[in-house]
């Protein structure tokens, strides 16, 4: 009897152990299929989510917080860990993210370093505005390739989505069709919304506005708005008295009703200028998640258009 119980015990232990092994193995199998994507911005992460859909199981991590100036984000240990363990990196290209290269070096993930092929640059094929003619920093901008705030034009979001789909298709050929299909579906939805936005903004065509930083030329061009000037005399230089005096004059001459700022920019100067010129300050979202209404790309643009419509 005792022997029987010992044998039963052994069998039970063995069965438990094998189950455990099987469980671990299947867990690993799952883990291998899950794609880990690190996106440099919340906007890119939102577009990537559309492309991935339910084609594969994926974890999409957005690095930079939407509530900071995207140029000067300071990565945290979690960011380094996520990039280290990521299978794919999707970034804005150009020189938007000054912190991108140091972060990649610190994470040391060979997929994204040197000849690493698992990076997707979403800016490919986007016609850039304000490409500098001379490389002098004194006159121009630190952006050597052109203005990098291209995603505020929904048309460009379509190109970005295509780039993500093509990049993922190249890396995961088995799911290529699903990625492309998801991208097409999203772009169709985007086009529909775009027609609606264009229709709603049509009455405001030709109206002038002022922005804090030079982040909105793409949006302005798409909706036929005219940017009369910026509160910053040059990108990154805080407003000066003489510049503001000149700008006040311009605003009166061109009948500017709206000053656009982003939530991380100070509010005192825009409010003061608005008071003096009888204009309104509008805080737009330049990244997904910057305000609670902007939960994904479409809702962000919807909210931006709604705010502009209301103010103009």
């Amino acid at each position: 009897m005792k022997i029987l119980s010992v044998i039963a015990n052994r069998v039970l232990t063995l069965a438990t152990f094998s189950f455990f092994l099987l469980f671990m193995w299947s867990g690993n199998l799952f883990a291998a299929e899950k794609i880990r994507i690190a996106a440099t911005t919340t906007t890119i992460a939102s577009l990537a989510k559309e492309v991935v859909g339910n084609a594969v199981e994926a974890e999409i991590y957005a690095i930079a917080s939407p509530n900071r100036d995207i140029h000067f984000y300071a990565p945290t240990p979690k960011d380094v860990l996520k990039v280290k363990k990521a299978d794919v990196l999707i970034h804005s290209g150009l020189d938007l993210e000054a912190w991108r290269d140091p972060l990649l070096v610190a994470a040391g993930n060979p997929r994204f370093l040197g000849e690493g092929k698992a990076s997707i640059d979403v800016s490919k094929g986007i016609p850039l505005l304000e490409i500098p003619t001379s490389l002098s920093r004194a006159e121009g901008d630190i952006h050597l390739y052109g203005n990098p705030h291209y995603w505020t034009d929904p048309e460009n979001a379509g190109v970005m989505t295509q780039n993500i789909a093509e990049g993922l298709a190249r890396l995961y050929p088995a799911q290529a069709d699903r990625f492309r299909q998801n991208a097409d579906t999203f772009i169709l939805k985007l086009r529909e919304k775009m027609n609606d936005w264009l229709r709603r903004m049509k009455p405001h065509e030709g109206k002038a506005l002022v922005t804090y930083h030079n982040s909105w030329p793409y949006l302005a061009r798409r909706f036929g708005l005219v940017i009369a000037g910026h509160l910053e005399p040059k990108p990154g230089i805080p407003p000066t008295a003489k510049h503001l005096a000149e700008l006040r004059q311009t605003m009166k001459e061109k009948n500017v009703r709206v000053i656009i700022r982003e939530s991380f920019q100070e509010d005192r100067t825009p409010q003061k200028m608005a008071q003096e010129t009888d204009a309104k300050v509008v805080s737009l979202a330049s990244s997904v998640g910057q305000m609670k209404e902007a939960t994904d790309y479409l809702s962000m643009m919807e909210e931006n258009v709604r705010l502009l419509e209301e103010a103009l």
Partner: protein
Amino acid sequence: MSNFLILMWKPLLACLVLTGIHGYLGVHVVERKVIFVDLALAQIAALGATIAVLFGHNLHGPSTYWFSLGATFLGAGIFSFTRTRREKIPQEAIIGIVYAVSAALAILILSHSAEGDEHIRYMLVGNILLVSFPEIIKMAVLYALVGLLHFRFRKNFILISTEPEEAYRQRLPVKAWDLLFYLTFGLVVTSSVHIAGVLLVFSFLIVPAVGAMLFSNRFSQRLFIGWGLGVAASLAGVGASYAWDLPTGASIVTAFGGILAAASIFSAFRR
């Protein structure tokens, strides 16, 4: 744990290198009562880099480094020249003036270039989390050389810091030794600030030395206690930054504050 080491070994190693040299230089700085001298020198280095940018050099290029080193040496000259035997104007005042004027000059120069503010901010805010291994090696070699020089002439260096009157009495060329001290100090601070940022460098310099003063009056004992406090704060700060996903530099500075507070309470009870 393994993730912690994989991610944080470079910042941690950089912290240990910083503790080594700054723990030592900090004892000098506190003895000399020139607490903010590193901020002033870092600001002068930033001014030098600004001038390089004005002449069309790349902000991160080698020529810009020489510009900022040259400016730092000029600052070292000013600080050694203004330390006189019978002090009429406190040296801390001169340090403050140099800091304010060089910061203002940098703003003036950059007000005509794009992204001006950010140039200065970038020079003064390093991110220790993203330090690279070659940077750590370069820093370690440079600081070892400075450390060797100071060890070779330790008697003179310590004498002019702790008992300048005695040094004058022994007819030592005090100004020349002062200049050498500030030259080596400037070299160290410029490199450290580039990697760790002003806040963190200031903490590495001052907190261990001040903490050690609570426990000992002897230079060598202060040095070892300071190193101990520096290592403890580095470990606690880097650990907290990892555990709660906080900015690494600020976590270490806060850890320094906490450890100094704990050390003061401990020393108060000991008495």
